[in-house]
């Protein structure tokens, strides 16, 4: 059985990001703003999005409808933002969805959903669902390595 080496995959300095370019132009012109300034210490709201499940008991089911949740409590790390003890958290299928910073009427992407943690360390716990699951995002702001990479890749 092949297995993820968790300490290396999920460690605080890991960057879990990808950019994909498509050949054709999508028909609309809705493009998200990326913010590379740190939002820490400023006033605004952090919003997580996702099309994934809405409870860990139903974690095999994508809802296929976009959902949103507000995050408040977080633990900053070098490459990741980790949120725990919030009313909302991530669920399988939310991977890759953006973490948004909303302030002064503007919305910008500041992170990308990467992974989550169950409270007590067993799959059975995870299946029960919980509002205290932690969720971690790769940072794209705050001068992190990822911010430099994105700036370079996108020609910003």
């Amino acid at each position, binding site marked *: 059985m092949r297995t*993820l080496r968790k300490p290396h995959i999920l460690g605080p300095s890991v960057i879990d990001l990808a*950019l994909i370019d498509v050949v054709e132009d999508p028909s609309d012109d809705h493009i998200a703003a990326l913010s590379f300034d740190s939002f820490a210490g400023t006033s605004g709201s952090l919003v997580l999005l996702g099309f994934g499940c809405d409870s860990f008991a139903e974690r095999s089911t994508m809802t296929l409808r976009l959902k*949103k949740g507000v995050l408040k409590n977080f633990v900053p790390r070098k490459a990741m933002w980790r949120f725990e003890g919030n009313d909302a*958290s991530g669920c399988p299928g939310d991977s890759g*969805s953006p973490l948004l910073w909303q302030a002064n009427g503007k919305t910008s992407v500041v992170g990308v959903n990467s992974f989550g943690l*169950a409270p*007590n360390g067993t799959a059975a716990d995870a299946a029960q669902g919980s509002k205290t699951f932690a969720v971690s995002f790769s940072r794209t702001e705050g001068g992190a390595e990822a911010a430099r990479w994105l700036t370079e890749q996108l020609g910003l």
Partner: protein
Amino acid sequence: MPDRHTSLRFLPKAGSLGVIAVGLLLAACSSRRFNSDSQAKLVGGAYADPGEFPFVAMLNKGCGAARVAKRTYLTAGHCVVSSNHNDVLDDGSIGGALAKGSTVALQSESVNSTHKLHHRKCPSTSFVHRARAHAAQTTHPGAVSHRPRAH
């Protein structure tokens, strides 16, 4: 001694949607429990309003992505990396190989289309490269992994 916790990559589990990799991680976090709330979304959120986040797309019915340039979407590295390319990554990355020329299905309120993938880029320090570097090491005791199913 720190508590042991289960980690869940936020990929869906069943059928062609991919598989959650479940393993152990040494970390400290809350151990409080709540009953699951069947009305909760996300976990604990709400449905987005129509048109509220038009730049967000669902990628191959397995991940989310944000359009950050005219033809470019930002997503998680583990959403686009094939387990075929990496012996230690067995998390059922959504569509297997997202190689140049492969198909990317993008669905949002205004876009519901299939595109050919032109290019895929990950940072040089991404988890993928780190995983490769440690591929020869032994599995973490007690870690559980589910084999991905064919997409």
